[in-house]
């Protein structure tokens, strides 16, 4: 199908074949939509009422939604219209996802009744029978008790709840309930940013020190971003994308975007795009560091005063000779290779001249704002890459000062709204989030030394009961779906799987019992403004209507379980409802924060927002490092981390992996340069506007306007006979996906990219026609954080039917 042959009809055929966009509108009667001029009539209706709520599905934002309701019918949705609408002022305007929420909430595929997997069918087949709530709750309570008594509370695990991120409730009711009954094994870290939070920050700054938001940018300054696609990800009116948009226009800041993909900061906004091979950022930093030395632009005074381990003379005690970063770049380090710009050019694919120029620009820029997105740190050895990007502003003394950022993710702020208290968990064991399938398969084989188990030397038992509330991890967001689903299918491993969601997601099909949830808009939802946004607001979400069908919300349902398990009074503190908790937790916030309206005033207003104070201070550590040490072992910024040096000695790592105490470039498993004749292309994923992770990916109306496609450079497409819009097969050692190709200049040659979040939809032959990136990626983890290395894969792409 060539582009010119495409017509509206062939489009429908093409996408229909892939099952991504049904021709007919979901939940929308075509006849009634336009024919009667319904919008006009409905809007004039006297009975229309507005209910305030918000969208919160873990994009990092939480945008305000105003539902125009008529009876139980959602007519349409608007967003924050309070205060000034001027460019630069804040209105928490929802993006295309929030604005399309009506068709998601009213989607015909919503779960309406409790379901039980039909006897005799296997997990994953998706055959369920409707049961009563009583039967569902009795089964869950008895399975909980049986498993707890048989295997101990350490065998019970509650999964992350990305789909219902960010209100006071989330999946906390399950923790609150289980903690009253002996607790459960827990995770640390998450899919998003394990490497930066557990593999980089603690060893560099001690915590997320030095993060500042785009609001703090100074007039005309330079901003260097590594894969930080804030305008793709955080599109709401109070998001980082908006902050940067405003700064680019009003402050006239110059932005350089280093990314394998031309993201939206480098389209209309006009950031300069430096295309880079995926996963080679640390090599670029090394090349720049070398050139800074050549140019005499390295801030040695800063590095001496505030950092350890850049040069030999600042190495911490006990560090071997030639283990400094300087030794590394000058060719006297552990690998004896000089990290010249030419060396970096070969690895990154960025021409040497551009690297030298970039070094000069970085060296001369004051202030300099360097930030990284989270895609980079999800590559193999993302732990090191994240540290390397943090090093870049350190080299030129541009951290902890106005107009700077510590090379980490840009900063954010928010009201410290408490969440439902979950009580004390007597079980101390924690495992890295990404490893839950391994914890099901063989928990005790995961140890502190080989898998980063915390709170114990090893897991006591394997996971036998899995609670999936509001998430699509098992057959969606988790790497290597074919591996994971094989584990889930085996009922002798995890003996009971509960899913509690609003849709029959690919993951839900692996559950034994499925419960139908309300969406957050259908219940009380008190939430602070977007957690990744530099934004102060509280949203007093009220239910848009009474629950429909037999859908029920999580706090009440866990209360029903608590009654069956004999802990209801403690669970509910004497009968508090979800709304009561909103009030109670909000009042706790009011004690912390001055000037907030009362809860009832807030409900009447729908939302409350406040202007953020911009951080233009010099950080106390920069002012006086002796008296304001960082929380690292040395109290300083650690280019060389003594903690990592210790881990390198003590930890057991898989073949080929290593831990280095400096932020060196170490190409990892299926990283750059590992391509073969059979798998000649790098494959990575990115966050796409059409869905937040997998949430909303089944909302056809969004997918029509923002098509889920594999991005491929014309050079790679032409040699494979692939035209824009062709269906292509993407194959790795783990699996195969069929997807439409987007042939575009926006991706670097030699790499292809598939947005994350597609719904796994396997044929009988195991070919995923839902375009889920995790069908293709490996289970390999980062050596320090044990976080995902999902971004590093090598693949081949061919035209289907060629």
């Amino acid at each position, binding site marked *: 199908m060539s582009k010119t042959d*495409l017509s*509206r009809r062939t489009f429908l055929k*093409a996408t229909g074949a892939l099952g991504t*966009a049904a021709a*007919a509108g979901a939940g929308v009667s*075509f*006849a*009634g*939509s*336009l*024919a009667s*001029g319904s*919008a006009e009539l409905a*809007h004039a209706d006297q009975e229309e009422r507005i209910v305030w709520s918000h969208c919160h599905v873990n994009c990092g934002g939480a945008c305000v939604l105003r539902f125009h309701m008529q009876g139980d019918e959602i007519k*349409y*949705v*608007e*967003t924050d*219209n309070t205060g000034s609408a*001027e*460019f630069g002022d804040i*209105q928490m*305007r929802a*993006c*295309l996802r929030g604005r*399309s929420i009506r068709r998601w909430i009213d989607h015909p595929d919503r779960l309406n009744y409790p379901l039980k997997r039909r006897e005799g069918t296997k997990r994953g087949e998706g055959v369920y029978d409707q049961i009563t709530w009583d039967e569902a709750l009795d089964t869950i309570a008895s399975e909980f008790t049986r498993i707890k008594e048989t295997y101990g509370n350490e065998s019970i695990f509650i999964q992350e709840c990305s789909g219902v991120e960010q209100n006071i409730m989330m999946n906390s009711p399950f923790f609150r309930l289980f903690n009253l009954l002996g607790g459960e094994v827990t995770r640390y870290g998450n899919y998003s940013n394990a490497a930066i939070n557990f593999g980089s920050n603690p060893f560099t700054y001690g915590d997320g020190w030095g993060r500042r938001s785009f609001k703090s940018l100074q007039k005309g300054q330079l901003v260097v971003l590594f894969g930080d696609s804030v305008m793709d990800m955080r*599109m*709401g*009116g109070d998001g980082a*994308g*908006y902050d940067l*948009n405003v700064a680019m*226009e009003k402050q006239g800041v110059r932005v350089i975007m280093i990314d394998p993909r*031309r993201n*939206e900061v480098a*389209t*209309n*906004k*006009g950031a300069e795009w430096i295309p880079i091979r995926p996963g080679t950022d640390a090599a670029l930093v090394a090349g720049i560091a070398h050139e800074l030395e050549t140019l005499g632009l390295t801030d040695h005074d800063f590095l001496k005063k505030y950092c350890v381990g850049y040069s030999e003379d600042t190495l911490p005690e006990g560090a071997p000779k030639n283990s400094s970063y300087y030794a590394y770049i000058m060719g006297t380090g552990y690998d004896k290779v000089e990290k010249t710009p030419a060396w970096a050019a070969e690895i990154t*694919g*960025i*021409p040497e001249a551009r690297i030298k120029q970039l070094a000069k620009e970085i060296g001369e820029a004051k202030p300099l704002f360097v930030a990284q997105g989270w895609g980079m740190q999800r590559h193999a050895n993302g732990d090191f890459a994240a540290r390397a990007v943090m090093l870049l502003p350190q080299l030129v003394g541009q951290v902890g000062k106005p107009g700077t950022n510590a090379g980490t993710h840009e900063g954010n702020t928010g009201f410290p709204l408490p969440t439902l208290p979950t009580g004390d968990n007597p079980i101390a064991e924690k495992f890295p989030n990404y490893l839950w399938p391994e914890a099901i398969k063989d928990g005790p084989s995961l140890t502190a030394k080989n898998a980063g188990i915390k709170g114990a030397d090893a897991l006591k038992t394997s996971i036998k009961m899995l609670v999936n509330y509001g998430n699509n991890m098992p057959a969606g967001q988790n790497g290597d779906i074919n591996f994971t689903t094989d584990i889930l299918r085996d009922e002798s491993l995890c003996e009971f799987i509960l899913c509690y969601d609003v849709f029959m997601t690919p993951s839900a099909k692996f559950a034994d019992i499925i419960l139908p949830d309300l969406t957050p808009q259908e219940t009380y939802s008190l939430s602070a403004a977007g957690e990744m946004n530099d934004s102060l607001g509280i949203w007093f979400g009220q239910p848009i209507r009474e629950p429909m069908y037999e859908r029920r919300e999580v706090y009440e349902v866990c209360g029903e379980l608590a009654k069956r398990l004999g802990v209801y009074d403690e669970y509910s503190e004497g009968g508090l409802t979800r709304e009561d908790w909103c009030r109670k937790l909000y009042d706790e916030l009011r004690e912390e924060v001055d000037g907030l309206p009362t809860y009832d005033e807030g409900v009447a207003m729908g939302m409350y927002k406040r202007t953020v104070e911009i951080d233009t201070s010099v950080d106390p550590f920069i002012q006086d490092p002796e008296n304001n040490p960082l929380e690292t072992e040395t109290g300083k910024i650690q280019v060389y981390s003594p903690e990592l040096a210790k881990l390198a000695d003590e930890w057991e790592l898989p073949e080929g992996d290593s831990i280095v105490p400096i932020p060196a470039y170490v190409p990892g498993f299926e990283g750059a340069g590992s391509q073969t004749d059979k798998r000649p292309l790098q494959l990575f994923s990115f966050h796409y506007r059409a869905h937040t992770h997998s949430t909303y990916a089944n909302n*056809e*109306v*969004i997918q*029509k*306007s923002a*098509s889920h*496609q594999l991005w491929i*450079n*014309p*050079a790679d497409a032409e040699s494979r006979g692939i035209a*824009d*819009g062709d269906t292509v097969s993407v194959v790795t050692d783990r699996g195969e996906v069929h997807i*439409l190709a*987007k042939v*575009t*200049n*926006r991706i670097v040659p*030699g790499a292809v990219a598939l947005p994350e979040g597609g719904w796994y939809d396997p044929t009988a032959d195991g070919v995923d026609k839902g375009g889920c990136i995790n069908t293709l990626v490996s289970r390999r983890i980062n050596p320090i954080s044990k976080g995902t290395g999902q971004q590093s894969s090598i693949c081949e792409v061919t035209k289907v039917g060629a």
Partner: protein
Amino acid sequence: MTQYGFFFDATRCTGCKTCELSCKDYKNLPVDFSFRHVYEVEGGGWQKDDAGFWTTDSYTYYLSMSCNHCDDPACTKACPTGAMHKDDNGIVSVDETKCIGCGYCAMACPYDAPTVSKEIGHSAKCNGCAERIAEGMLPICVEACSGRALFFGPLEELPNTDERAEVAPLPPASLTGPNLYLKECAAMQEKADAAAKISNILEVM
């Protein structure tokens, strides 16, 4: 006579398509067609230098557009019944009772604004949210844009009306006098040329 029009500040657009989707929600449009489209335009390419390094002179920009409520609309001239007409405020809209659904407006419009199909039963297009304008509000798309890239109002109230939009993929403005005014982004100003192409055809058709 008052003439309403759109102003699109391309320097603020991030291609998010919230304008398009908020319209589809408000107007309750079916999945497979929109009043507003966000065109993704690409041009340039990749070159391999002597040392084997790839460099690119490519560019990408977005253009958000619905009906441009032209001064001299091709659609109203083609329309046999007068259903497609200009209102007092210059908004081009469809009188659904008069429209026979012959499709000539869609054939004539160079901006792909009207859509006619059997299912809809008549021509349908952006009416500038006339019902909201009448109540002193802005069109739903304008109020939806988090980047404040879209403006709508009487021409004298727009940020400026110096240049009617005619950047690729648009035809010369002299043909119909579109009331779409543009602040061009750098990629439009410096690079857009005849080799540009719409790179998101699946999304806008």
